[in-house]
């Protein structure tokens, strides 16, 4: 397939090609560009509506992002507002909440990696090693389910679990004679609620990629190891884990690209003014500043800052991935 393509591309070459086994085949010469375009005119037609969609819904927002450099006033619109250079950016960087937002954002995104990644790896290995068909299927099916629940629903589930008045966790605390804790408005408990609820919701889903990698392990390796006298623990240590190590590194590297995304939906549902000091991340701040305080220019500047850093990180991490493992990067 690919060979044929490259042959087509090599215009001006003789119209024959010698294959590996020595046979000579005729290769169609590369058609003129104009002819190619005409031949594909219905393909371009197919592209028309998605293309218009891209311009409107993906590129107009990028164009609108210019208000980061403007003193935006709704009356003047995007084009009519006055340019003010980097004023919005310097305002943000010099403000006291900049470091707090950055710290919280990084704390959650890194914390989520540190907790979810090991949990999902262990879960994947356990699912792979489990010999009870029913147990394996049940855990697999149920573990994927929470991924499909929204954070609004998750908030309701956490309410039944953690609420000081009607949560079962507080019932257990009371059973042992403790004082009920309001987990969602305690500065100490809140980060753990965020990290653990995310791990609970996503562990099954993030395990899928590891399960897929485990399924590709050559089983003869296990048979050989067994004959050589390796026990189950040693087989996991020396065969299973090393075989999925490249996937683990790839996943880890790709996570670097999204390190400024600490989970807007989750945070927006769970946080409250009492826990802003540990719960406010860049995205929630942009939302409040922009759409509740109508500081459009400032909020866009912060969003743009995050977008640029995010883009650099994504490109960087994908470069690393393509260097590390062939064929799993974005580009």
């Amino acid at each position, binding site marked *: 397939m690919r060979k044929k393509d490259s042959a087509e591309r090599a215009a001006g070459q003789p119209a024959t090609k010698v294959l590996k086994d020595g046979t000579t085949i005729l290769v169609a010469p590369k058609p003129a560009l104009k002819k190619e375009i005409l031949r594909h005119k219905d393909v371009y037609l197919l592209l028309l509506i998605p293309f218009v969609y891209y311009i409107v819904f993906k590129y107009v927002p990028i164009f609108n992002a210019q208000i980061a450099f403007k003193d935006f006033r709704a009356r003047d619109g995007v084009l009519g507002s006055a340019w003010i250079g980097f004023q919005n950016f310097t305002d943000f960087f010099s403000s006291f909440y900049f470091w707090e937002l950055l710290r919280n954002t990084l704390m959650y995104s890194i914390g989520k990696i540190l907790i979810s990644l090991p949990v999902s790896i262990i879960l994947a290995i356990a699912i792979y090693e489990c010999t009870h068909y029913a147990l394996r299927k049940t855990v697999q099916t149920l573990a994927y389910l929470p991924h499909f629940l929204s954070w609004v629903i998750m908030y309701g589930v956490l309410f039944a679990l953690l609420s000081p008045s009607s949560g079962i966790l507080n019932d257990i605390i009371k059973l042992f004679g403790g004082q009920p804790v309001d987990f969602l408005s305690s500065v100490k408990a809140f980060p753990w609620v965020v990290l653990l609820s995310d791990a609970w919701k996503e562990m099954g889903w993030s395990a899928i990629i590891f399960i897929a990698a485990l399924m590709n392990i050559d089983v003869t390796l296990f048979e050989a190891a067994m004959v050589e006298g390796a026990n189950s623990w040693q087989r996991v240590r020396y065969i299973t884990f090393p075989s999925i190590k490249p996937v683990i590194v790839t996943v880890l590297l790709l996570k670097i690209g999204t390190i400024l995304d600490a989970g807007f939906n989750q945070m927006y549902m769970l946080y409250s003014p009492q826990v802003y000091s540990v719960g406010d991340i860049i995205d929630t701040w942009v939302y409040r500043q*922009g759409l509740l305080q109508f500081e459009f220019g400032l909020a866009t500047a912060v969003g743009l800052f995050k977008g640029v850093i995010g883009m650099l990180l994504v490109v960087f991490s994908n470069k690393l991935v393509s260097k590390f493992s062939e064929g799993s990067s974005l580009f």
Partner: protein
Amino acid sequence: MADKKKTRVHLKPNMHNKAVRPTRADKTFQVCVDVFMVLMLIIILIPLWSTVTLSFRPNTYIGTYLEGMFMAPWDWSFDAYKALLGNNGFVMAFTNSCKILVGGVVSALLLTIPLAYVMSVKSLPGRKVLTTIILIPYVFDVGMIPAYLLVQNIGLMDHLAAVFLPGAISTYNVIIMRQFFDGIPAELKESARIDGCSEVQILIRIVMPLSKAIVMTIGLYYGVSFWNNFFNAMLYIQDSNLNPLPILLRNILMAAGMNEYVEVSAFGNAPIEAIKAASVFMSAIPMVIAYPFIQKYFTKGTMVGAVKG
């Protein structure tokens, strides 16, 4: 993929494969794995079960909420569900969410399939440029305010379409689908082309029938994202008659103070916690019902995407 999985697991040496006698360490390992799996099962189930039992809690029940988890099914009260289903606001929000779901999935697939297919036509002049055009907004995310201004400027405010249109093409889904299309043997398309099919006909007659699994998978991804979408509705829908379920659910869940309690108590005589939990369960139920049917497709589809990156 499913067949392969079965044979692999079957082939893998374990305690049931008596070729080599399991040692004591092997047995301990299996016990540890099983205990871990049961533990996981419990961890996954407890939060779900506590929500479900909370929703069945009768007004007259005096036990703690922990005891409520072990309540006998014949003591369960369906008052909360009756109240929700009899409430106009809830029924309206449910209808709105269904409209968003159907409109969203249809428009998303109609936009995504052609785009992914065109990207997989290898001979297309300008294919590289197209890929770049599609990747730039994916990598460079300018945030919520510019998107908000767009929806405001094109007059989508207070239309249900504003909830799903901004997310109707997810670049990630396009990439997964294109990878699948790339895997369809080129000979099939070529022979159809020689028989005089146009590209559109090839897409409809050759590629689509082969792509059921991926269309179901991507459709599911879109469906979940639209059904769960809370943020777009919060930004773009001000008319409370157009509120989808997640917005109503949030309003119900956040109603804690006395003032709001009056509003929520319009739902009848079930305890307010039961109402909250029941509305959580009702919002999740379409997902839970559809889930087993589509699960086999998404594992297939995701594996394809996962293995290739």
